């Protein structure tokens, strides 16, 4: 059920959600649940390479660093894994260009206001704007995408 996250008691979920037309006899595979979600204060603790500030050989990725969503978790895994390997090989850890969505996300979590830090999903608001504003939103986002993929092509 799209967007129907819930903390209702399971019996109540069945009773109320079966009032929805078409779901009178719905069979539930799984009931909605709510749980606590824990994340680090990334701006205080992490660099944009996903290394801890106090220990270069400790890195972190996923929802615990305050990024939100599956794809952001994969992105963090990619950078933390890549940098863990680079440290093992005595190479400089990689910082991703902040015009990429990945780079912008890790720049955000490592530099955000620590006092009011909340998890951040990928979004275009954290990407640096062009000096000349493109008025049409779709065109603007498409331009961000092109700039990002061009920048990404240079790093590997």
């Amino acid at each position, binding site marked *: 059920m799209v967007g129907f996250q819930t903390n209702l008691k399971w019996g109540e979920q069945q*009773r109320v959600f079966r009032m929805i037309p078409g779901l009178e006899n719905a069979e539930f595979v799984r009931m909605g649940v709510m749980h606590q979600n824990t994340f680090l204060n990334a701006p205080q603790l992490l660099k944009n390479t996903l290394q801890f500030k106090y220990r270069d050989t400790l890195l972190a990725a996923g929802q615990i660093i305050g990024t939100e969503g599956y794809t952001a978790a994969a992105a963090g895994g990619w950078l933390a894994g890549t940098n863990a390997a680079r440290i093992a090989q005595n190479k400089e850890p990689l910082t991703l260009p902040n015009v990429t969505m990945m780079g912008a996300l890790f720049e955000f979590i490592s530099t955000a206001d620590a006092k009011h830090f909340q998890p951040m999903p990928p979004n275009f608001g954290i990407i640096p704007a062009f000096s000349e504003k493109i008025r049409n939103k779709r065109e603007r986002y498409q331009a961000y995408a092109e700039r990002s993929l061009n920048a990404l092509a240079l790093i590997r």
Partner: protein
Amino acid sequence: MNNITVIGGGIAGTETAWQIAQAGIPVDLYEMRPVVKSPAHHSEELAELVCSNSFGADATDRAAGLLHEELRRLNSIIIHTADSHRVPAGGALAVDRGIFSQNLTQTLANHPLITLRREEIKAIPVEGIVVLATGPLTSPPLAQELQNLTGMDYLNFFDAASPIVVGESINKDIAFLASRYDKGEAAYFNCPMNKEQYWHFWQELRQAQQAELKDFERENAKFFEACLPIEELAQRGEETMRYGPLKPIGLFDARLGDFKENKVNGLMV
């Protein structure tokens, strides 16, 4: 070469371990399931998708879609596996979650440089290179350890998952298949509600009993706006759900016409 330690076999830890192994370095991937259970997971597979089966919009002029494309170009195993087990979902990248996780578990377990260890880590190893990918449900002993190490308090919020309904049990005389704005294949059943049905549903939802939260959870209960429980939306007002999951925009049914024009609300299942 010393093994790198990765703690946590969710999406992040799975990608981390894979990238380390691709660089030719041996890695120990620790996952506490199934030895220690988590309150949200249902399997012992790596990279289990707990909330929805969707990675979000896939077009590159959308934020999630751009991130997908960046990761494709960087050879992310998560995105490549998602692409291989894609299911129709309008313009979104969605997967068959069982096959997705099983496939990743096998791929990693079979990699000669990856050792999958089913153990709970209670303290962060002092030696060597360590990646922490323990997720939003980091186990209490490790959370305590982290708090001691960093000398700082955690921040907490709540995350909520939606119920899942068996497709065959939906009444197709009422519900109809469509995607919002007719994007891609019609992948959702839509349950139309007239004004009266909506009002009754809203009333019942507002008054329905909530599950008990533990004391420490209640103290910290700060709902996260992107993932608000439906009953919380209902509490905020009669119209709130119509601007959220029950919005009537972009839906058309042969019998009911355009939802917005005809003031019908729709739920996607």
